[in-house]
């Protein structure tokens, strides 16, 4: 039997508080990351991801204490990302109880960070987040780009940094292979094209990456319903899906989503 597919709620944290509308019955303080982490854990989340969206300097202290509190109330793995630039940033988060750190922009700027982290903490601690957007300015002569054939125009998958705002010219497929070699344990793959659309995960991108590497991939961006998760698991070899907004209200709780996935033949932990 294969591994179960993981469903991972993502919480955006700003200044120690969860942002974006979150409404649960029975949750006293909808902005408290610790209380929400516990709720998700009790509902059957397979893992949690916290993304620090401010990542200012004083925020790092707040984040550290949040990580410690979260680690003392949940007994499932959790990842912390956002603003991790150096080995010591990552170390602080891990020593305070996070199981993994997710690094993004820093990986592009200093790729050896991945290897350093892997050597000290082990591959399993290192999640490399790759934000990807289709770039239609294709240069046929550039051998570093894998040209994809769209219905209208050709493109390549470009790695974006600074929260998806800045292009790098780096081909995402090549980049995924490279970070696998450097020591990444997992890839958190976000489609900037799909993000926020609620039209479903980016199947084309997810397939392109999953078929190029042998480490687990988490798909992110575009999820608006349980059916989008079913689609991602049926059409790609992805190991986990990340979703934010769909879990933030009582109507679509994790236990309901997982039950639905199981009915559709997806192996989940119930």
């Amino acid at each position: 039997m294969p591994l179960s597919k993981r469903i991972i709620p993502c919480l955006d944290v700003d200044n120690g508080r969860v942002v974006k509308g979150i409404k649960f019955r029975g949750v006293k303080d909808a902005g408290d990351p610790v209380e929400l982490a516990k709720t998700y854990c009790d509902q059957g989340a397979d893992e949690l991801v916290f993304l620090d969206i401010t990542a200012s300097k004083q925020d790092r202290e707040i984040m550290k204490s949040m990580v410690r509190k979260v680690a003392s109330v949940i007994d499932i793995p959790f990842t912390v990302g956002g603003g991790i630039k150096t080995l010591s940033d990552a170390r602080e988060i891990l020593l305070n109880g996070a199981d993994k750190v997710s690094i993004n922009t820093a990986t592009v700027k200093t790729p050896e960070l991945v290897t350093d982290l892997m050597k000290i903490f082990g591959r399993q601690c290192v999640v490399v987040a790759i934000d990807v957007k289709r770039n239609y300015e294709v240069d046929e002569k550039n051998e570093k780009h894998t040209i994809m054939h769209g219905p209208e125009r050709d493109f390549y998958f470009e790695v974006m940094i600074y929260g998806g705002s800045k292009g790098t010219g780096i081909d995402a497929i090549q980049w995924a292979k490279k970070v696998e070699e450097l020591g990444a344990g997992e890839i958190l793959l976000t489609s900037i094209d799909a993000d926020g659309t609620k039209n479903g995960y980016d199947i084309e991108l997810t397939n392109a990456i999953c078929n190029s590497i042998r480490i687990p991939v988490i798909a992110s961006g575009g999820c608006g319903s349980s059916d989008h998760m079913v689609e991602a698991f049926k059409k790609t070899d992805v190991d986990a899906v990340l979703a934010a907004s769909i879990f933030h209200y009582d109507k679509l709780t994790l236990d309901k989503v997982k039950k639905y996935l199981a009915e559709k033949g997806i192996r989940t932990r119930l």
Partner: protein
Amino acid sequence: MAKIAIFDFGAGNLFNLHQSLLGNGARSVDIIRSLRELENYDGLVLPGVGNFDSAISSMQKDSALMNAAVDKGMPILGICLGLEMLFDRSEEGILEGLKILDGDVLMLPKVKVKVPHIGWNNLRIVNTGSNLLKGIPQDSWVYFVHSYHIEPQDDKLIAAVTEYGSKLPVVIERSNLFGTQFHPEKSGKIGAQIMKNFVNICEKNE
């Protein structure tokens, strides 16, 4: 009530393990860096973070004390890397293992499965008399993160297996020596029960 030591390889996150032992009945839990202090404790946990060679070198000077603790029947639980270290050698490193158990540690077969093996998988219990797995239902979900797996010479050690490419031995038990390839401290309620079982075994040994 049991007093338990966690050996620190210097590789990081022991907080979760510490919390988990305390939350599941241990009276006190200390993080130790030398096994000379071991006689003050009722049980020892070898944690599952770090890499093989650096973990082995952090323990090398204490290997005689480690062997003595095993011989005396002190309850010992190795988690993930902490389990792998008990064997002769590992493909992850060049140093010799602790050689408490006969067998090798091999890399998971990349051609067949994704490596690392990350996520929730089912336990198939083969030793139904296992003390560590007391009260754990067949096919329970537990959380794995590892790239290497153990290959014990003696099949009788194996208390449970998991299917990942092939049948991997993932729980071992030999009198008071225990090991899990998965992380009980991260495996929800099932993991908590396993931790409770270990704490209870330590208590009996007090």
